[in-house]
């Protein structure tokens, strides 16, 4: 039922990429933008293609556009007006509501991402550094051939060692909890929940509330498309490790503090199932590491603190209408690994990721505004997400514990938003439609 041959692969597949590159582009004129798109769309693989050939492929390309970018390509005003308001406004205009204030404010963003001239992103995932270099050279050549197309900036992606499992620079195992889409044939791991209607993530299909509604027009442009919220998050690894040392005398105590911030041990083992001691085998076992709830297993947060990152990002059975709030995450880490015993080196490192969803306002913005940054989430009073929340040193973090909870005041910011944008991820046919807009008219 899913039209896998018309859906860009990033939406439905994970690729075995260890490196990659994001290229952020601006189109000075529509003809140049369309020339670039005409060439690169040949390289952008569908989900069907990647599913068939992922083992032998060396690189995977995705293309997406901001609302300004669609206009720059020549999409007419009538069509542009049919896109949702939050996408039209863009992430910069939504900054205050998203919590992108202070250090996180778009005024401080890098790479031209806060500029209205940001029109497109080319996402390259590559199997190795040599393939990335080859692709980048090819892409530079293409950009040089397309008059009026300018590269605003680029970001090199690097997996962090050890490479046998995905994790961020803080050391937390990643990719543990992803929704499953009905029709993909994928079997949800225990605790993930039933497969969700495709419209929650892919435009043109029924969603959890019923048939598709209010889709951007014309249909060929929106069908099999989606929205991506891009977040470029710097991780302050030195500061994070200092914090753990400050709040834990022994290695074990430090690991427990790290686990209490996240809700999982850095191995991935959830505190609901391993409350006292890490269990790396559990952390690595997809059949077990997501199989828990909160309402019955941990209503007061004695295992997973109520304000922890994991509990905020997916409150499971303690929030209403969860099926309408789920998101697909894709992306990678960037910057060099900071060895465990090395002091902070001042080099930027972090996560550059996409949240993919059918509605930015209902899914991504809700998560950001309510789950991440509502100080009173779960009646906590004066907290935000300890990992990605807007922290300015005035907030606290409470760790429930009998007889008396532990309260950490003046929580530092472990991450800083360095950029972001809202992109529309067109389907494969829509890419062709956009590339040939001059013929359409």
């Amino acid at each position, binding site marked *: 039922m899913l039209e896998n041959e018309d859906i860009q692969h990033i939406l439905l597949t994970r690729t075995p990429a260890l490196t990659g590159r994001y290229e952020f582009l601006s189109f000075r004129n529509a003809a140049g933008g369309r020339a670039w798109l005409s060439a690169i769309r040949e390289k952008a693989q569908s989900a069907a293609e990647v599913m068939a050939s992922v083992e032998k492929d060396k690189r995977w390309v995705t293309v997406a556009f901001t609302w300004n970018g669609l206009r720059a390509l020549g999409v007419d005003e009538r069509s542009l007006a049919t896109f949702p308001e939050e996408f039209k406004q863009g992430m910069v205009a939504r900054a205050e509501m998203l919590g992108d204030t202070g250090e996180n404010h778009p005024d401080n963003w890098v790479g031209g991402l806060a500029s209205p001239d940001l029109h497109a992103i080319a996402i390259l995932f590559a199997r190795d550094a040599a393939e990335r270099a080859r692709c980048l050279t090819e892409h530079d050549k293409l950009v040089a051939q397309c008059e009026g197309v300018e590269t605003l900036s680029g970001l090199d992606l690097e997996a962090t060692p050890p490479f046998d499992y995905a994790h961020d620079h803080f050391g937390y195992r990643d990719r543990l909890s992803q929704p499953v889409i009905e029709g993909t044939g994928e079997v949800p791991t225990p605790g993930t929940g039933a497969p969700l209607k495709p419209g929650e993530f892919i435009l043109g299909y029924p969603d959890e*509330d019923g048939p598709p509604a209010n889709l951007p027009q014309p249909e060929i442009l929106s069908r099999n498309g989606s929205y991506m919220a891009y977040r470029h998050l710097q991780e302050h690894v030195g500061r994070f490790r200092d914090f753990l040392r400050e709040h834990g005398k022994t290695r074990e105590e430090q690991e427990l503090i790290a686990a209490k911030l996240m809700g999982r041990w850095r191995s991935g083992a959830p505190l609901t199932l391993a409350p006292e001691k890490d269990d790396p085998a559990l952390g690595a076992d997809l059949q077990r590491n997501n199989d828990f709830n909160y309402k019955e297993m941990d209503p007061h947060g004695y295992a997973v603190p109520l304000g922890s990152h994991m509990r905020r990002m997916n409150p499971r059975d303690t929030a209403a209408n969860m099926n309408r709030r789920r998101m697909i995450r894709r992306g990678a880490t960037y910057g060099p690994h900071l060895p465990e015993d090395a002091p902070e080196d001042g080099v930027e490192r972090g996560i550059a990721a996409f949240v993919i969803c059918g509605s930015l306002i209902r899914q991504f913005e809700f998560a950001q505004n309510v789950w991440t*940054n509502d100080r009173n989430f779960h009646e906590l009073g004066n907290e935000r997400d300890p990992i990605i929340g807007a922290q300015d040193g005035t907030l606290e973090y409470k760790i429930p514990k009998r007889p008396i909870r532990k309260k950490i005041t003046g929580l530092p910011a472990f991450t800083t938003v360095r950029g972001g944008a809202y992109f529309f991820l067109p389907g494969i046919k829509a890419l062709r439609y956009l590339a040939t807009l001059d013929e359409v008219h």
Partner: protein
Amino acid sequence: MSDTQQGDWTKPAAMAIPKGGFFKEKVEQGRYGPIFPKSPACYGFTIIAKIIPGREEAFYEHARNIEKAVAGQPDVLAVLKLHYLRWVLFPIKGETYFMYQGIFDTDFDKYTEDAVALFGATGLKTVFENLEGFPADWKTNPSAFVKFVRDHQCPSFLEYGEYPFVSADEIKKALKLKAAFSNMLDQMQ
């Protein structure tokens, strides 16, 4: 983001609110637009709209339905973080108007989609669909729903709290604690 004001609950407080309902120097933005400020009487709204002539009975029927729904599932409205709801029908020059007043612990903007979903699940829609100008596509168009609510919102110019800024959850916790103490004292007899 909600700004929890850790006021002194023992000290009753009143807040005069400027015309239009916002303090211009600190208007907080929500996903669907500016958020009305929190007062000593928490967050809330007062929606006043004209009903479609001849539809009064639908409102009374709805009241009976909501009574049944809450009795059957007491936490049916929990997501709205409510203190109180009041529903009033009243006449102006021979026409019937509806007033819907709610007091919440969170700004309405945060849980808009949850409220829209509740409308469908509890039959609350039967009331709003009998109001003039309510958008026919409310179920799939939260923005249109929000616009109707905002267009018909009559902001307070004064709000008062006898125990200001206290949440329903805090009140319930205090009552549970009181019950627990009472139980403990019983056991000591």
